[in-house]
């Protein structure tokens, strides 16, 4: 059954329309990719879902409409948004950053377990737990951002350009860890990526945006087969 259903979504910046009739469907435990060039509306789509950008159209999570909810209310429903640029809290230590992620939870004991899980998932963070977010490398900040999302025990995770500005090897590590997370936790995922190769390692299906519209939607296998996709996004 579908966990997150977006249909006919529109969004504006000022008088500029950035999203036009976007639709998206994420099954429970599934992973959907959003591909597209810069400015195609990928990030805005995620922001609209998490409520950081006003939008019209219909967004349903587990059957409930998200219309008019604030980002923190959306998060409370179990949607964790890993924003573009990671949104690390520079003055907080790694541990504190993770605890902010668990803000909505009351189960102190499991929170501790989840922190350990994050550190196990991203070993690079282990010897940095006491250092400030601002002191981390880009890759570590990205891992921290994902970790913060994990701490919320979400049902769906919105990943925005997790590979942005990372060395290819680091990007791979990050995606490997996320892949492992997906298997172990069964969290559903919406993955925005410019690097389709990376995205395809994670998602079962994907939609391609151009100028704020879905132009193409299909399973990973189908999409991989299409040569325009190969040309545009797989550098093949």
């Amino acid at each position, binding site marked *: 059954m579908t966990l997150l259903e977006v249909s006919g979504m529109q*969004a*504006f*910046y*000022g*008088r500029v329309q950035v999203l036009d009739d976007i639709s998206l469907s994420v099954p429970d435990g599934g992973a959907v990719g959003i591909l597209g060039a810069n400015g195609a509306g990928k990030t805005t789509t995620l*922001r609209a879902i998490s409520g*950081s*950008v*006003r939008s019209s159209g219909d967004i349903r999570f587990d059957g409930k409409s998200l219309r008019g909810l*604030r*980002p923190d209310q959306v998060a409370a429903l179990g949607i964790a948004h890993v924003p573009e640029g990671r949104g690390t809290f520079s003055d907080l230590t790694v541990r504190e950053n993770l605890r902010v992620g668990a803000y909505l939870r009351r189960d102190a004991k499991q929170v501790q377990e989840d922190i350990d899980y994050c550190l196990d998932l991203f070993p690079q963070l282990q010897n940095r737990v006491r250092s400030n977010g601002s002191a981390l490398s880009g890759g570590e900040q990205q891992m921290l951002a994902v970790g913060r999302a994990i701490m919320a025990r979400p049902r769906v995770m919105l990943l925005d350009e997790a590979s942005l500005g990372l060395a290819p090897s680091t990007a791979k590590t990050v995606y490997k860890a996320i892949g492992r997370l997906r298997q172990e936790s069964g969290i559903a995922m919406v993955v925005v990526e410019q690097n389709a190769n990376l995205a395809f390692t994670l998602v079962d299906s994907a939609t391609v945006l151009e100028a704020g519209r879905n132009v193409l939607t299909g399973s990973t296998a189908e999409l991989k087969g299409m040569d325009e996709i190969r040309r545009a996004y797989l550098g093949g």
Partner: protein
Amino acid sequence: MTATNSFSTAPASPWRARLERPWVRWGLVALVVVLAIVVPLLLPEFANQTLARIGVFSVAVLGLNVVMGYAGQISLGQIFFVGLGAYVTAYGYNAGWNIVIVFVLACLIPAVVGMVVALAAARLGGLAIAMVTIALPIIGVPLAKRFSEVTGGSQGTSARFSAAPEWSGLYDDQWQLYLVILIGGATFMLTRNLVRGKYGRAFAIVKGNESVAASMGVSPYRYKVLAFTIASLIGGVSGFLYMVVIQYTSPETLNFGHSIELLASMVIGGAGSIIGSLIGGAWYVLVPQVTNIIDPNLTTVLQGAILLIVLFFLPNGFVSLPRLLRRIGRRDAPQRSAAEVPQHIEE
């Protein structure tokens, strides 16, 4: 938030476009000059005196604008340089020096002091600079009292060199206003050229992002010091004009409170704006007088309320008024987006 620099921003609008036409510009300039010459002759004494005071503090605000509005370095000590300029003027005149030399010194000494302070302070960032600049007026007051043989101590010192000379056939208030228009006008023109030239661009870069500035080969440190020095020099000019118009100075002149009022006036007028400085000066002088007319017993509460109300509708100061009007003009536009409203902190 749109940038506060009134030159770089403000999308083209019909009236602005019309302003660009050269003949309109020169027409305006001519008009201003004519007004500057005629108005003092027509206005009653008190209006002239008020205009002159506005001139004095416009220059002070202009200086503050250079360091804060343009170079983005918070300074809470501007009044100290005004006071210093005033004291230099008073001392020099009473010592019988040539008034031109006095004027030059009234500009240079504050500039040098400002530079020395900046050389040390500019190494620090943000609040630290604020702290160092707060210290100036706060330490300045007891200093002025201690060197009483120079400053006249807490009783202050007078210098009346701005009486209208016989040949002019003018009233004193007219003569003083002309002096203010002349010196203040020149200061405004020079500063305008400065901030519109390469220095202004450098300031803007430093304000925007110091590391970027450094990467572009613009030394933040050097330009911070430069901005402070210029601000102090302009403060000195304002101090000289202070003596032209008020003709008396005392430790109260460099009271820390006035520094805060200058800062408020700058923001109210419009940070990073030449016109804004003028409006700021008018604000500094007129608001106390207007509140006095409303009710002398409620000046404080009225001044606070007026300040907050204005900022609430014009967060970028009076210079952003046209932009506000234009926005009201097109209310039919589609619903405001996240870009305009930091929605996440709305309840």
